[in-house]
């Protein structure tokens, strides 16, 4: 059983790392602010979410698992807010990077 959990962890964390990599590549390669924000939100939502999902089987207790999920939710909230604010300013200034 713990072998299956380990496999799940490895797959989920690797997938999360892949999304982080994709987000970073997008940040470096995309031409302007709005597209870069789009790339970063993929890293935030999917990348971190998959990593948290992968770490849940190894969390010490139910409370630690809930803490992990709360971390993900707060990061989502903060990331979404900042992306919207940056996007608003970027559009207003004619996407000066």
């Amino acid at each position: 059983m713990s072998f299956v959990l380990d496999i799940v962890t490895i797959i989920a964390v690797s997938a999360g790392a892949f999304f982080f990599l994709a987000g970073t590549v997008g940040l470096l390669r995309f031409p302007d602010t709005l597209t870069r924000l789009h790339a970063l939100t993929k890293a935030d939502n999917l990348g971190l979410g998959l990593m948290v999902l992968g770490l849940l089987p190894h969390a010490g207790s139910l409370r630690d698992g809930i803490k992990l999920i709360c971390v993900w939710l707060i990061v989502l909230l903060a990331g979404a807010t900042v992306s919207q604010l940056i996007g608003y300013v970027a559009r207003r200034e004619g996407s000066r990077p």
Partner: protein
Amino acid sequence: MTFASMAFGSMTFALALEIVLAAVVLTGAVWAIAARETLPAVAGFVAYGLLLSLVWVHLGAPDVALTEAAIGSGLTGALLVGAAARLRLSEVPMAVEHPGVILRMPAAVLSVTVAAALAASVLLLPDPAPTLAPSAAENAAATSLGNPVTNVLMAFRAMDTLLEKIVLLLALIGVWSLAPDRFWGGRPGPRHYADPQGVLAFVARVLPPVGIIVGIYILWTSADHPGGAFQGGTILAAMWLLVMMAGLTDAPPVGERRLRLLLLAGPVVFLVIGLSGLAFGDAFLAYPMAYAKPLILAIEFAMILTIAVTLGLLVAGPPEREPGS
């Protein structure tokens, strides 16, 4: 033993990861120094600070990791971004002042020398390392706190913590005294406005309750687990700054009596308990063993209020509006 075998003889996967972490940290540091414009440099610095808190976790110091992430890169980053935004108009004329090779070469030589000297002293640290951990463990029974760092901060080196609070207050008085005379006692910073239906106002309504609980929890749990009054106070200060920046509340006038009482609460409670240690116990800041934990908790609760208000006001800056406006 050659250097290569000394360096890589015991290479494990964990060590390889730590080398990678150190390399990424240094990339952030190089970016912070070498970036052309200030805002990217500040971004590099904040990234460097957050990665540095990972380094602290690897060094087995979770309390310091919390402090570095919260104050070292979080609040300092906020301060630097605010200053960079205000100084943006002066950047273009100052970019002309590019230092020539005459300054860069000796500076580079000096920096390399200092770094090499520090690196040599790292490699030459005595083995076995001298440590005070055994005496910290021996005396831990005096306060019945489980977290050794909190023990040191609040019991063994309580004098340092008391003086640190006073240093914070002195820095705040220094910041306030930079205001023009007509603004003395007024509100710091401009009045912030945000769309009440917008995202910032929404987050400033949703996040602070969570943040306050997390901040007080970090204080409460510092008795036995990693945490502390400074880390919790920083989170409270950050929530207050968020609410101020969203325009949901205005910064208080710095001459307000209630504000100044809050600022004094921490050091005064600390001082009173310390002096009562002198009167009823052995020495200044000596806690009687039976009451050590409640006294420390009382001090910490007063401290977290003062720390939150002081850190928030340090980021908000000197008064910029007249009192009574």
